[in-house]
């Protein structure tokens, strides 16, 4: 058990160092969400009608954080492919390290990135004066949910990275799969204006559940989007994140076991 903890910390320490020495990656999770919130909020703020009233900038903040958590899939996949290609992966697999520790280390660092994104989004929104995060415990709960989503997506990314095994495949396939998942949710656009069937798709999209829950926690109301979850997105959002982790984490560890099979 202590070995597991020290292994996880060692792997996380390595991934954290990568993060600090690869500023462009960190920029992706600080400047990027900040620019998205300000850009979207100011550009579309005038023309977007937020259900239940309120600032579009505050509305889109939760969506941006959620989309960042979802994009963890691509980030983790690329990280794993990098390790596969430079042989680091073989090195790790030849060591007496539990596979789960390798997974946990990376997922831990990736979920820290979600927090980083959330903090930069919240500070951007706060500076402009959009009402985000009135109640500290609610903000923490929202952060926790986004972290869970980030962890699940990170596990999924590790699985995909180990399955595709090359960066080109990851870059061309993963975003194409993620884009509709994010866009067909209420992350960026209130679904009110959509045709009925599409509104159902958006309504039952887990990304919508997470976004709506976080919006609720950040004290911006989002009643209209949550029709798909019988008006209660939170339990669905939580359940979805946990199920995603429960499915993707074992898939990722199994892929790790098999990763030596081909070269």
């Amino acid at each position, binding site marked *: 058990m202590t070995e597991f903890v*020290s292994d996880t910390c060692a792997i996380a320490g*390595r991934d954290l160092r990568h993060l600090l*020495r690869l500023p462009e990656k960190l920029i992706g999770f600080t400047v990027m969400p900040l620019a998205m919130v300000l850009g979207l909020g100011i550009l579309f703020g005038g023309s977007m009608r937020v259900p239940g009233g309120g600032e579009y900038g505050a509305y889109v903040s939760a969506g941006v954080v959620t989309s960042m958590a979802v994009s963890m899939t691509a980030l983790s996949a690329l990280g794993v492919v990098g390790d596969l290609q430079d042989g680091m992966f073989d*090195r790790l697999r*030849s060591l*007496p390290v539990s596979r789960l520790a390798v997974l946990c280390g990376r997922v831990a660092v990736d979920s820290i990135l979600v927090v980083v994104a959330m903090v930069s989004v919240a500070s951007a929104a706060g500076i402009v004066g959009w009402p985000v995060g009135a109640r500290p415990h609610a903000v923490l709960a929202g952060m926790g949910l986004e972290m869970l989503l980030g962890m699940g997506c990170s596990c999924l990314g590790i699985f995909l990275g180990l399955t595709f095994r090359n960066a080109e495949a990851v870059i061309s396939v993963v975003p194409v799969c993620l884009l509709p998942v994010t866009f067909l949710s209420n992350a960026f656009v209130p679904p009110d204006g959509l045709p009925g069937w599409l509104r159902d798709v958006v309504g039952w999209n887990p990304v919508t559940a997470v976004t709506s829950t976080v919006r609720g926690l950040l004290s911006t109301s989002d009643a209209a989007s949550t029709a798909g979850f019988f008006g209660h997105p939170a339990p669905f959002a939580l359940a979805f994140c946990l199920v995603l982790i429960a499915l993707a984490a074992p898939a990722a560890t199994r892929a790790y076991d098999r990763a030596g099979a*081909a070269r």
Partner: protein
Amino acid sequence: MDIAIQAEGLRKRYGGKQAKDALNGVDLSVPAGTIFGLLGPNGAGKTTIVRILATLLSADSGEAGVAGFDVRRQPKEVRRRIGLTGQYAAVDERLTGRENLRLIGTLYHLGRSATRVRADELLEQLDLTDAADRPVKTYSGGMRRRLDLAASLIAEPPVLFLDEPTTGLDLTSRLTLWEVIRGQVRGGATVLLTTQYLEEADQLADRIAVLNNGGVIAEGTPDELKDRVGDDRLRVTAASAKDVIELTKVLSRFSGDEPLVDEERRTVSVSMTEGVRGIATVATELAEAGIPVADFQLSRPSMDEVFLSLTGDAPQPVAEGAVA
């Protein structure tokens, strides 16, 4: 004597389009404290064997044990006792050399202070102290390979797998690595080494297995393998080109074989069954015949000749420019 690495009937077939047997029943047995060389052309299955023994890959069938533990059933026990240096330097580019070694040491569960001490020792030993705190991406190829070897030595594992550890290294780095490898064996480690360099196998290995198309085609000490190829050969180089024909006549009297003549180098070689006694006689005969000699040597078949004659697709001993 303890057997450190044992394999019986290892088979492996990779899926995919060109499905062919990567290994078709390989047996190996490496006594503890020795260096075992795996020699073979590209695609012979050397890396596949190393990956199976290092628990990175599972064999389709067959049994393998390393340091007394079953590779398939007790992989974690095996991993505690092995160090692996693969064909590609498996080090983290963004970390410094020292950070790389400390990470690996931590993951071997050496403990904090032991890891630090051992990392510094290895950096010193492999001549990386000056570069220790620079990110590995600034390292040259040779430095990476040395760091990679250091990483596999940090836990002082009883069994070392070195998959072409010196490919692409300059001579100095290669000699450093050889010395480090010999040092490990003096300390009791067992080494399984694959190499493309026949000289490396000849220099380092106690026993060699020659691998071709996924099977072991010959095994033995370097001397035993050389004996299989043929007798010692005497090579005599005439001082001037006009003497080559006369030289050939003299030498042909001492061997059942037809002498091999290399006109360009003025060298004639014959196989010698009589060894040192034969040399004395030849030298006397040449002096009596009045043929000035530029070079005179008795040598064993080289590992190159062994390798080529075993793997088959090559001329017989003393190939170059032979005119029979």
